[in-house]
C-alpha cells in the first residue's frame, strides 16, 4: 500500500505542476480600447464587455485615453502588448495611424479586433460593427429629412475629423441626400469629442445661417451639444436637431422638442458582442459568411460578412418620444 501512496502523491504533484498553468491560461485576457474613456457611450460598451466577461469566464480590461487622441491611444495599446493580453479590440481615432501598433500586436500573437469604428483593415482579424455604415448614414438622413419636412438648409457638426466611422456615415448621408432635392447641406464643422465645444460651434452656425432648419450631431457628444444649442438659441420648432447619440443624453431634448428622433444601436450589446467574438476566435473557431449567430446575452442575431471580415450587430435603431425612456444607457 505504501508504494502506491507514493505514486499517488507523485501523480498529484505532477497534476498540480503541469495542469495549474493550463487552467490559469484558460482565462483569456481581452482588452477594449475606446476612442476615449469617460463618455456615456463607451461606458455603455464597457458595461456590455464586463457582462460578457462574467458570462464567458474571461478577464476584461477597459482602458483608453481621456481625449480622443491618436497618440495616447497608441500608447495604451503598447502597454497592453507589454502586459501580454490575448486579444485587443480598439475603436481607433485614426484608421491609418493605429496600423503600426496593431501590426506589432499581431506579431506578438495577439488577436486584433476593431469595434465601433474600423481601421487598419489589412491587419485586424475582425471588425465588430454596430450596423452597416450605409444603413446608419441613410437612416440619419431620413430622420433629418422627415423632421425638416423634406426641405431647407442643414449643417453637420461632426467630432474627430479623422474618425473613420463618422466620415463614412457622412459620406452615406450625402449619398442619401440625392433623394431630397429640396434639402441643402451648408457646412460641416468639427467639435472633437467635446460637448461644450459642440454647443459653441452649433450656436455659431445658427447665427451664420439664418435659414438653417436642421443640424446633425454626428457623434454621441455632438448630438446633445447641438440640441442644447438649439434650445439656448430659442429655436425649438424652427431648427431641429438629430444625430447619433445615447438616449440618456438625448432624453431632455426629445422632451423639450429640440429633437424629434435620433439614431443609435445598443452599445451595451456591442460591447458584449466584442468580447464574445474575441473569445470565439481565441477558442479557435472561424466565422462563416451569411450565418446569423446566436449570442446568448444580446437581443440581436449578428451576421458575418466574410469579404470585409466584419461581424454586424444588427440594424440601427431609431429613438423618439415613444421609446427614449426605455433605455438606461
Amino acid at each position, binding site marked *: 500500500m505504501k508504494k502506491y501512496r507514493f505514486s499517488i502523491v507523485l501523480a498529484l504533484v505532477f497534476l498540480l505542476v503541469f495542469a495549474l498553468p493550463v487552467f490559469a491560461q484558460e482565462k483569456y485576457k481581452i482588452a477594449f480600447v475606446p476612442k476615449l474613456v469617460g463618455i*456615456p457611450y463607451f461606458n455603455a460598451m464597457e458595461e456590455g464587455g464586463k457582462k460578457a466577461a462574467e458570462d464567458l469566464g474571461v478577464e476584461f480590461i477597459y482602458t483608453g485615453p481621456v481625449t480622443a487622441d491618436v497618440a495616447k491611444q497608441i500608447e495604451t495599446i503598447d502597454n497592453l502588448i507589454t502586459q501580454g493580453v490575448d486579444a485587443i479590440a480598439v475603436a481607433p481615432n485614426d484608421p491609418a495611424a493605429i496600423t503600426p501598433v496593431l501590426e506589432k500586436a499581431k506579431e506578438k500573437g495577439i488577436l486584433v479586433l476593431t469595434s465601433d469604428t474600423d481601421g487598419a483593415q489589412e491587419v485586424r482579424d475582425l471588425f465588430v460593427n454596430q450596423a452597416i455604415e450605409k444603413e446608419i448614414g441613410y437612416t440619419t438622413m431620413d430622420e433629418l429629412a422627415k423632421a425638416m419636412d423634406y426641405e431647407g438648409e442643414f449643417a453637420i457638426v461632426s467630432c474627430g475629423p479623422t474618425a473613420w466611422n463618422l466620415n463614412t456615415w457622412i459620406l452615406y448621408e450625402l449619398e442619401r441626400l440625392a433623394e431630397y432635392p429640396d434639402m441643402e447641406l451648408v457646412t460641416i*464643422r468639427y467639435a472633437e469629442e*467635446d*460637448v*461644450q465645444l459642440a*454647443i459653441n*460651434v452649433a450656436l455659431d452656425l445658427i447665427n451664420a445661417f439664418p435659414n438653417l432648419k436642421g443640424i446633425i450631431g454626428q457623434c454621441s457628444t455632438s448630438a446633445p451639444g447641438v440640441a442644447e444649442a438649439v434650445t439656448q438659441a430659442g429655436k425649438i420648432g424652427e431648427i431641429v436637431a438629430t444625430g447619433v447619440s445615447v438616449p440618456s443624453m438625448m432624453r431632455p431634448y426629445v422632451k423639450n422638442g429640440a429633437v424629434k428622433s435620433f439614431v443609435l444601436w445598443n452599445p451595451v450589446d456591442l460591447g458584449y458582442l466584442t468580447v464574445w467574438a474575441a473569445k470565439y476566435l481565441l477558442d479557435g473557431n472561424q466565422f462563416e459568411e451569411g450565418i446569423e449567430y446566436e449570442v446568448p446575452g444580446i437581443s440581436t442575431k449578428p451576421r458575418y460578412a466574410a469579404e470585409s471580415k466584419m461581424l454586424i450587430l444588427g440594424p440601427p435603431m431609431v429613438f423618439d418620444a415613444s421609446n427614449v425612456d426605455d433605455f438606461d444607457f
Partner: protein
Amino acid sequence: MINFQRIVRRREFTVLVLILILSAIFSFTTERFLSVSNITNLLLQLSGVAITAIGMTMVIITGGIDVSAGSTLGMACVVSGYLLMGGYSPFLALVLAVLVGLGIGFVNGAIIVWGDVPPIIATLGMMNLIRALMFQTLGGRWISGIPPACRTIGLGKWLGVPIPMWIATFLIIVFSYFLSYRPLGRHIYAVGNNPEAARVSGVNLKSTIIFVYALTGALAGFAGLINAARTGIVQTNSGMGFELDVIAAVVLGGTSALGGRGTIIGSLLGAFLVGIIKNGMVLLNVPALSEGLVIGALIIISVLADIIRARRETR
C-alpha cells in the same frame, strides 16, 4: 495733453485696429456678423476666457505661466455642477467654485515659491493631477440636466448684454485699477522686470507670486461656474485646452512672454481678436480645419513683431 504717438505705438492699439478692420470686413461680407444674436453669442463665448485672462496676464507679467487653468475650470465645473444638481443655491455653488480654484492656485504658487519648481512644471503637474481627480469624481459619467432656474449666471441678460460679460467687465475694471495703481499691482511688474531689484527694494517676492497664481485659480473657478451654468452639461473633458485659449489671448494682447510688460485690457482685446476670427470664419463658411492655421499664424506673427520692435528700440 494726450501723447498720440505713444498710444499708437502700443500693442493694444494695433490689436484694436485689427479688430476694427476685421469687424468691418465681416460686417460687409456677411450681414449676420453685426446681428444682436451673433454679438451676444460672441460675448458669451468670450467671457470665460476674458475673466481667466485677468489672472493669467498677471502670472505672465511675473514671468510665469499657468497651464493648469483649464483643469481648474473643469474641476470648478464639476463642483458647481454637483451643487446645482443637488438643489443648493447658486450662490453657494459660486463661493465653492471660487474657493476650489483659489485652493488649486494657492498650491500652484506654493510649489513654485517654496519648492523652487519652474512654473510650467508645477502647473503642468497640477493640470494632470486635477484632471485625474475630475475623472475619479465623475467616474466617467456626465452631469447633465442642470435645472434652468440656477443657470441665470450663465444664460441671463441685463440690458441686453449677457450677465457673464457684465461680470467680466466689472472684474477687468477693478483689476486694471489694482494693477496700475495699487502697490501690490506695481510689485507684480517689478517682479517680472527684475526680481532681484524688486527683492532688494522691499517687495515680498514669494507672497506676490503666490497671490497671482491664487488669483488665476480663483478666476478660473469663477469661469468654471459660469461655464457649467451656461452649457448645463459637465463632461470629464470640460475645460480641456481652455488654458491655451487664455494664454493665446494674453500673448496676442501684448503681454510679453518674457515678463514685465502687459495690460489686462490688452488681454481682453486679444480674446476679442481670437473670438472674432473664429466667429467670422464660421460666418464666411471657411473650411473648419483652417481655423487653427489662421490663429496659430497670428500668434507667431504677433510675438515676432514684438521681438522685432524690441530689437529696434534697443538699437
